[in-house]
């Protein structure tokens, strides 16, 4: 039976010389060889890089030197995040052979902290999707139920942690793409506030929404990874100067009767009855832990999906204009430059990406900009105001992460709008810029995981992690 490793577990075993970083790495690559063909969660492996890092860590252990925070910890990186010298495809054919000449800041920080990077994980193309069925490299299967989706767009990053093929991983979240796969795969998954983690090296989808964040098996490990990657980066002008607290030290501090908001709009129709039962059980657990539960209203919740799909697609249409076959990626040759652009993009992008580029270009085009994009930006302000108002009354907000349990592969692929509506509880926090975590909150029929989402105020990550940790330690995953 394979060991379930945690970050502390790895460091203790290394320090006690029970296992070397190289041996641990070998163990993980054997697991990956056994399970990845079925899951399709990893797109590429980076054994040479991983071995070099593992050797570095083993040398530190041999010298009796202090070990950095993620020493020897096997980790995976979503394939929209740049890794120097390693193919970074964004799940797209248009970047099938793209090799970045630099590392994302988040990747640099992980390696500086000793993490051993195993490989790149599968995802929806350019992070556009909620099921990992939009990848040009095939879907990812949910390790807990192979006929079901792992969620998206960070399906691969969630699946590898859930299947024991990495101790932690990085994903990205634009409208729910970390939280929802975390929920579907039964593991904790967090996005920090917008600006908490540098986006340098994150291949852009929607620049005012994109965030990098961690998946792990335990909330404590999510906290540790977040602490490593967070912090001001001069290479990302949207990264905040707010200091990074010691998230690990905040966990396990006794809760001082926090006030938790239960927003009426997230508990209306449209939630699966079995999901509702588990979420209600989770809320009851928070009550048992001594939290005060307060009914709140967030009146613009129902407008969030419409707002999101205007703003995100508009920004995507701009960000994806760079894929033209000139400098990198796929080129479909032609005698005319403009025809080369059209053919390259026509051949290289998948249907969901094309759909969003068309929609995004439309809402920005002359005659429509005011009615759609400008209107969307105004409603976004109202949605952010809902959160601002709520946090005057409560310390954190509890919601379901997803209205439905993990659905079956192919179930939602023919109707894009149906797929978009799956993000109904997550896009709100994305638009408002606030941090959010999904924590495991029971399993339907003992198999299909449900996730409970906790939103905090801007830069309130410590509080969110504290609550999530208390919930987990009190048996939240087994409600």
């Amino acid at each position, binding site marked *: 039976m394979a060991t379930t490793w945690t970050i502390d577990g790895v460091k203790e075993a290394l320090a006690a010389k029970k296992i070397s970083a190289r041996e641990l790495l070998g163990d993980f690559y054997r697991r990956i060889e056994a399970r990845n063909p079925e899951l399709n969660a990893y797109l590429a492996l980076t054994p040479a890089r991983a071995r070099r890092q593992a050797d570095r860590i083993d040398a530190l252990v041999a010298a009796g030197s202090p070990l950095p925070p993620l020493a020897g910890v096997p980790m995976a990186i979503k394939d929209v995040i740049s890794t120097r010298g390693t193919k970074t495809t964004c799940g797209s054919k248009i970047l099938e*052979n*793209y090799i970045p*000449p*630099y590392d994302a800041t988040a990747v640099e920080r992980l390696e500086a902290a000793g993490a051993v990077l195993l490989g790149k994980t599968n995802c929806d193309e350019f992070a556009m999707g909620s099921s990992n069925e939009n990848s040009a490299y095939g879907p990812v299967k949910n390790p807990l139920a192979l006929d079901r989706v792992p969620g998206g767009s960070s399906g691969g990053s969630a699946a590898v942690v859930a299947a024991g093929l990495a101790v932690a991983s990085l994903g990205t979240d634009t409208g729910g793409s970390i939280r929802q796969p975390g929920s579907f795969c039964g593991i904790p998954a967090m996005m920090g506030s*917008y*600006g908490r983690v540098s986006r340098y090296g994150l291949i852009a989808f929607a620049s*005012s929404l994109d965030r990098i964040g961690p998946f792990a098996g335990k909330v404590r490990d999510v906290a540790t990874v977040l602490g490593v990657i967070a912090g*001001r980066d*001069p290479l990302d*002008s*949207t*990264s*905040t*100067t*707010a200091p990074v607290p010691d998230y690990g030290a905040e966990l396990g501090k006794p809760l001082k009767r926090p006030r938790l908001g239960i927003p009426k709009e997230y508990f209306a129709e449209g939630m699966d009855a079995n999901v509702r039962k588990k979420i209600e059980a989770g809320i009851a657990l928070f009550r048992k832990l001594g939290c005060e539960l307060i009914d709140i209203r967030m009146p*613009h919740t129902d407008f969030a999906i*419409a707002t999101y*799909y*205007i703003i995100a697609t508009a920004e995507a*249409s701009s960000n994806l*204009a760079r894929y033209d*076959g*000139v*400098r*990198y990626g*796929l080129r479909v040759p032609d*005698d*005319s*430059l*403009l*025809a*080369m652009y*059209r053919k390259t*993009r*026509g*051949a290289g992008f998948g*249907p969901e990406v*094309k*759909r969003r*580029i*068309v929609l995004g*270009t*439309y809402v920005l*085009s002359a005659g429509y900009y005011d009615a*759609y994009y*400008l209107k*969307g*930006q*105004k*409603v*976004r*302000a*109202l949605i*952010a105001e809902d959160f601002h108002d709520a946090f005057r009354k409560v310390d954190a907000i509890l919601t379901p992460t997803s209205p439905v349990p993990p659905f079956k592969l192919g179930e939602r692929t023919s109707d*894009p*709008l149906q797929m*978009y509506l799956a993000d109904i509880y997550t896009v709100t926090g994305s638009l408002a*810029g606030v941090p959010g975590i999904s924590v495991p909150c029971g399993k339907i029929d003992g198999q299909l995981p449900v996730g409970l989402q906790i939103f905090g105020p*801007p*830069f309130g990550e410590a509080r969110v992690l504290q609550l999530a940790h208390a919930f987990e330690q009190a048996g939240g995953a087994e409600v």
Partner: protein
Amino acid sequence: MKISREDVLRVAELAYLDLSDAELETYRAQIDEILEYIGKLNELDTSKVEPMAQVLAEDQAADATLREDLLVPCEVAEDVLDHAPDPEPPYFRVPKVIER
């Protein structure tokens, strides 16, 4: 119907996207449905609301002062050209631009 075939063609041209006839019709129908849904934003009176152009508040945003205009080494050019579709260092070779 909110969006016509001509609308999609025009937008595809703006976005330099070659779409087949089948794609054109499929996307048109899907985007039509989505735009219909997005129309619900008109239920809200936003006449007195400022658009949210920035996500970070003033006190959370990065230091707005510009850095010194100093040259910093950046040695990726060779690497980038090595992996380009049709390099002729130090250039990227492209087909000639044809006047419309």
